[in-house]
């Protein structure tokens, strides 16, 4: 008997014509690990929320969800709370109490579990998740990754039969995300818990999953074993193929030597690449630009947050040129975000200098420096102060000497550039993560600064949204603006940057144009590069693989 059985589920939000879910049917058996993927806004969250009565959104639902053969509405709240665990997107918002131990016990307290059992279950979960070291800590001292791990552990302490997760890693950096997803795989493997997960980091989950479902406009478009989903998407010519792991993408986009069993991991991809033989094509190299004008120069910059604190930026030197997209990558705590705040003038170095140059290459005067640099900090929600996006954008133009019409046309133009025209009259908090990011970017862009610093602009975005963001940034580059990206997303940086820099221990450890940069790194590099570096080190993206091994013309 299936654990969860969804039959013909149709769901319509109030006031909408189009249903958000159209007769969705599927079932989950004991021990399944199913990944749900699809473009943002395709109804993934709506579907997942319909699987637990207390989380079901307002609206009209037809069809039935059966839990262990019983319609979900007839399953008691208590049983649902205990057996259907649910982890939401934002790690911060789900934490209820102030201490780690209390959070672990919270669910058990609600169920009225006696103290000795509670002690045992909390102890078990703390050991399973490796939480002992921070068991007594304040929740506010944890990193984002630890917080999400705590949320998962707190749910697991209730010993659920099914675990439902709605994009749990979208707010995490890649290392924490892959840790989290590996832990999920371990839960599935070692405890046999059934898992239904919506996710867009396919690279990390697919090798461990037992099934994949692709959603499209409220319907399940494809559902298969991870090894075969590629073939189905390929035959459907589905753009979701672009969201799949690099190995799978390369196989089906190259359309050559398609193997019986589709490679999913870097290792399997490597084997397949080797079977292709010597590449006939060549990769497109970027032309070196001449006459570079310096936009920013770091000279022996040192910075720390407090007098007795540790140096966060130590002896930073380097130049960023006008009109380039410059990516700063590196692990957490390397000082990337701090560096961004220094460029934007939010913090000042205690030693050394950051020189900014104007259009022709003269240094800016101190008095004119204000407004030369705009920074988009990580949390886009912190940019919104008004009730609609339009009002918020107006707020950015408040101090400018422009007539009302000029302001309105400027806002319209900016909305077009950032693809948020239809969203202008929405409340900023009603937008999805990617939309919020673009609205915040629009607000920053209205300041019309020459230099833009973007801190994690594609965090939590799927492939389509990333492409949108890339288009916006390339258009800005064309306008001659200098863009500095701080990001964990190697694939994104590799595809778009003119130069990449690896930040380590408070300064730039290496800097180069993307191909040479990733050719030098063996670990800190894109999956496409890791798959092919035994043949050609300069490959960075899947597109490069296609260029190298493309079918001979004719």
């Amino acid at each position: 008997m299936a654990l969860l059985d969804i039959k013909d589920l149709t769901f319509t939000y109030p006031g909408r014509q189009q249903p958000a879910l159209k007769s969705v049917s599927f079932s989950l058996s004991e021990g399944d690990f199913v990944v749900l993927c699809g473009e943002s806004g395709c109804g993934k969250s709506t579907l997942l929320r319909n699987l637990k009565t207390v989380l079901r959104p307002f609206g009209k639902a037809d069809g039935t969800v059966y839990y262990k053969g019983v319609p979900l509405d007839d399953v008691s709240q208590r049983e649902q709370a205990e057996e259907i665990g649910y982890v939401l997107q934002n790690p911060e918002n789900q934490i209820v109490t102030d201490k780690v131990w209390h959070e672990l016990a919270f669910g058990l307290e609600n169920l009225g579990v006696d103290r000795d059992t509670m002690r045992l279950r909390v102890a078990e979960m703390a050991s399973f998740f490796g939480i002992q070291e921070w068991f007594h800590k304040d929740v506010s001292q944890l990193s984002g990754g630890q917080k999400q791990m705590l949320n998962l552990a707190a749910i697991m302490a209730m010993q659920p039969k099914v675990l439902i997760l709605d994009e749990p890693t979208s707010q995490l950096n890649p290392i924490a995300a892959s840790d989290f997803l590996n832990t999920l795989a371990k839960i599935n493997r070692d405890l046999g818990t059934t898992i239904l997960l919506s996710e867009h980091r396919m690279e990390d989950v697919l090798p461990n999953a037992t099934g994949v479902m692709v959603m499209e406009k409220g319907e399940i478009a494809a559902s298969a074993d991870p090894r075969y989903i590629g073939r189905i998407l390929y035959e459907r010519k589905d753009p979701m193929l672009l969201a799949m792991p690099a190995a799978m993408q390369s196989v089906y986009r190259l359309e050559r030597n398609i193997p019986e069993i589709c490679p999913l991991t870097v290792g399997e991809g490597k084997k397949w690449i080797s079977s292709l033989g010597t590449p006939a094509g060549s990769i497109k190299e970027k032309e070196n630009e001449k006459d570079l004008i310096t936009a920013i120069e770091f000279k022996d910059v040192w910075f720390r947050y407090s007098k007795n604190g540790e140096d966060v930026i130590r002896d930073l030197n380097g130049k960023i040129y006008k009109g380039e997209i410059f990516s700063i990558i590196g692990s957490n705590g390397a000082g990337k975000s701090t560096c961004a705040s220094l460029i934007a003038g939010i913090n000042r170095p205690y030693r050394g200098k950051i020189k900014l140059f104007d259009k022709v290459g003269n240094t800016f005067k101190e008095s004119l420096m204000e407004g030369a640099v705009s920074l988009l900090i990580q949390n886009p929600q912190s940019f919104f102060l008004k009730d609609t996006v339009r009002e918020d954008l107006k707020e950015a133009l408040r101090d400018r000497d422009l007539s009302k019409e000029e302001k309105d046309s400027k806002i319209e133009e900016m909305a077009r550039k950032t693809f948020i025209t239809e969203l202008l009259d929405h409340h900023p908090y009603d937008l999805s993560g990617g939309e919020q990011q673009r609205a915040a970017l629009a607000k920053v862009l209205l300041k019309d600064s020459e230099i833009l610093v973007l801190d994690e602009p594609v965090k939590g975005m799927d492939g389509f949204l990333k492409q949108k963001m890339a288009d916006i940034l390339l258009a800005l580059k064309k306008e001659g603006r200098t863009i500095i990206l701080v990001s964990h997303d190697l694939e994104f940086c590799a595809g778009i940057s003119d130069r990449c820099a690896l930040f380590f221990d408070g300064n730039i450890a290496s800097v180069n144009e993307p191909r040479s940069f990733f050719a030098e790194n063996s670990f800190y590099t894109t999956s496409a590069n890791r798959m092919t570096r035994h043949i050609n080190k300069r490959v960075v993206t899947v597109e490069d693989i296609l260029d190298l091994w493309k079918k001979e013309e004719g």
Partner: protein
Amino acid sequence: MDKRDSFSGYNPLFLIAFFLFTVLVTMIVRHPVLGAASFSGSLFYLIYLKGKKAFSLVFKIILPVMILTMIINPAFSHKGVTALFYVNNNPITLEAILYGLYSAFMLGAVIMWFSAYNEIMTTDKFVYAFGRLLPALSLVFSMALRFIPRFNSHIRTVSNARRSLGEDLEKGSIMKRIRNGITVFSSTVTWALENSVDTADAMTSRGYGTGHRTTYATYRFDKRDGIISAVVLAAAVCVVIFLARDSLYMQFYPSIEFNPITAGSVITAVLFTIICFLPLIIDFQENIKWRYLTSRI
């Protein structure tokens, strides 16, 4: 904490009762011997707990407060029979000066007990003790402790975001700064309300409100706690009984008078002194035990 303190390892319920008792006796009972015991006990314990930092607290806050009290009382209170001299036709009396002096020490002792309390009663101990008395409120308290730092840090993020747009909270005219401050605050409130929807979901999803709640405790009331509680309770009861019977009491106004010294009052003074020095006694005994244990290894 500079040193490892063993006293704070006792059950929070006992600790709260201990501090409540010492502070109440210090404030209610007016007698120089008890005052001195309380003052010295709290001072030495604070120094033991905080080391050098205790001195800066004593000299920067406690001493000024005490001096102020010493000056203010005789300056404003003119009760008492022994006038020493006159200022603006107002008598400055010996009784008022002594009462000021006594109040200063009492106030000092109370502040020091509270700072020692602050040092060892971490929030989770408080929530535990609170939870034993009022289970429903303890969750609210714990949620508030989670919310406040988050709210503050979001305010910081928003003002950083404002700064990156060139709207510095610390620049511009006062009106502009106030307007900026209000926008930041109101947007943070919106943010908090928006996000609390998620928190509510996470709570109901984990079965909040489905029935009887139990509470998890990281502290256990063990034999050691039982013994120390019984001992202190017995001593405290003795102190209270003897205080009621022999009324260890000093009168300041109109003239200074003591009740006669009796066996009961001596016992009271000795017991209360022991209670005040109990944290230190426990710590020293524990230190000696450790030295003994390590010497055998």
